[in-house]
């Protein structure tokens, strides 16, 4: 019991404390494996699911939180994937009657639907885990240190920095309007909205100019200097190595075989 407690404490924030580079590389590897696994090897996906779940145990976030956040995103994918079974051509599986219309569902379409749902569901789960254990600036730093294109990172970081300012500004404009608008002359309101959008655009533009001069005044010459603040520790290497070994195990079917042969009871949790 004591050992478990100590283990819990030391691993409680493991994922949070990892270097962003280690996280980016290993999470990308997991996602790649998930995407490239054919859907017919459905047992592999159970293992991926377990892998992601076990990762959450090494972080401060709880499984509940992760699922909650995932559920928010799932409907969007469902909305996109819903049409696939009807659109994909192939052997007809059955028909769906809606009023006068008759929609054919194909086998290929159904598989494709399952494919999209399972893979994107798992990816989102992992994405949610990643985003709740890494702050966005750290993530950008990690990308930068992994030699992702600087320009892209700069654009993203500006967007992250100013999207809120912009939203806040828009909200202020709307609030200022609402406080002085009492429901008359509603036709003119379209014009007012036009003014607001225009004003917002000009403000953004002028702000961009001021920000640029603030950068230039502090020596900016087209390249954002990188201050190293992260150092890879043995934990990062261990983590990444462990993930890669597990992935190799899953992809080669080794883990599944071990689960089936050595401990027959493992079916209990494999079927989770």
């Amino acid at each position, binding site marked *: 019991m004591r050992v478990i407690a100590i283990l819990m404490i030391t691993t409680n924030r493991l994922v949070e404390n990892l270097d962003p580079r280690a996280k980016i590389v290993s999470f990308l590897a997991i996602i790649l494996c998930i995407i490239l696994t054919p859907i017919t090897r459905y047992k592999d996906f159970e293992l991926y699911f377990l892998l992601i779940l076990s990762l959450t145990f090494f972080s401060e976030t709880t499984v509940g939180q992760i699922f909650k956040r995932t559920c928010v995103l799932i409907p969007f994918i469902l909305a996109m994937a819903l049409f696939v079974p009807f659109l994909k051509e192939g052997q007809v599986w059955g028909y769906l009657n809606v009023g006068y219309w008759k929609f054919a569902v194909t086998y290929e379409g159904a598989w494709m639907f399952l494919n999209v749902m399972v893979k994107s569901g798992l990816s989102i789960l992992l994405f949610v885990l990643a985003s709740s254990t890494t*702050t966005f*600036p750290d993530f950008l730093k990690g990308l930068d240190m992994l030699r992702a294109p600087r320009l892209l990172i700069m654009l993203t970081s500006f967007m992250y920095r100013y999207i809120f300012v912009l939203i806040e500004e828009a909200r202020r404009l709307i609030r200022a309007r609402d406080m002085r608008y009492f429901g008359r002359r509603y036709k003119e309101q379209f014009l007012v909205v036009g003014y607001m959008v225009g004003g917002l655009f000009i403000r953004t533009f002028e702000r961009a100019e001021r920000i640029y001069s603030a950068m*230039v*005044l502090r020596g900016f010459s087209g390249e954002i*200097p*990188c*201050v190293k603040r992260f150092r890879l520790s043995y934990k990062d290497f261990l983590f990444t190595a462990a993930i890669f070994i597990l992935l190799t195990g899953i992809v080669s079917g080794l883990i599944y075989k071990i689960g089936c042969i050595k401990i027959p009871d493992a079916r209990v949790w494999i079927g989770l």
Partner: protein
Amino acid sequence: MDRIIKVHNLNYRYPDGTVGLKDVNFEVVAGETMVIIGANGTGKSTLFMNLMGVLDGTGRIEINGIVLNRSNLKEIRRGMGMVFQSPDDQLFCPTVMDDVSFGPANLGWSSEGIITASQKALLLVGLEGYGARTSYHLSFGEKKRAAIATILSMNPNILLLDEPTSGLDPRSTSKFVNILYTLKAQGKTLLIVTHDIFLAQEVADRVLVFSEEKRPIAVGGYKEILADTELLLKNNLVHQHRHRHDALIHEHEHRHGYLHEH
């Protein structure tokens, strides 16, 4: 006396035709603190932008004996730092630490040097432990202090501060006055735009008054300028209005920040 900044016949007109500055002439002595006061829209911020070479007016600006032009801008800016009026323009990085270390990193310092300087600057403005915070989530006063830190970390010789204390609470303001005293003791040249006559009285060696004609109308020691009520009255820095002393409400000219006897 070394004149570190010399401005001769500086004129600036905004692209839309608005006059920003008209025939500005003044000089700043090395190591002095010059406070610039003036009503809204009299061209104080425009002057700073010209001094930093962001706006390109006509006339001559000499800094450290070098005439400012396109080719030596970079060199001159290494020794100058400016804090913008709006902190949202100054803080453009995702985190406070990124922002504070941006200047030093561009100056080509070593990693350790950058980090020490940044932490020192944050400590000086009372934001130690804010390094990992997102600038957007800071309060206005915190942003303002972070903006000041981004310049302090570069350790420039000349500092231009555009309304550094607006929006700060009294404690942060007096803390800021402390920082100014430290900088003064280090021999830095400070140019400070402010509407806070109280601040001017605390730190100014000389005061420059900007008038509605978008040029300095008076310059002099802080005592004589701040005592010249007529001048201040004429330039909207002191004005007639009613105010309250417990039960007594009456009207007379009044300097903000002043307590007076009756």
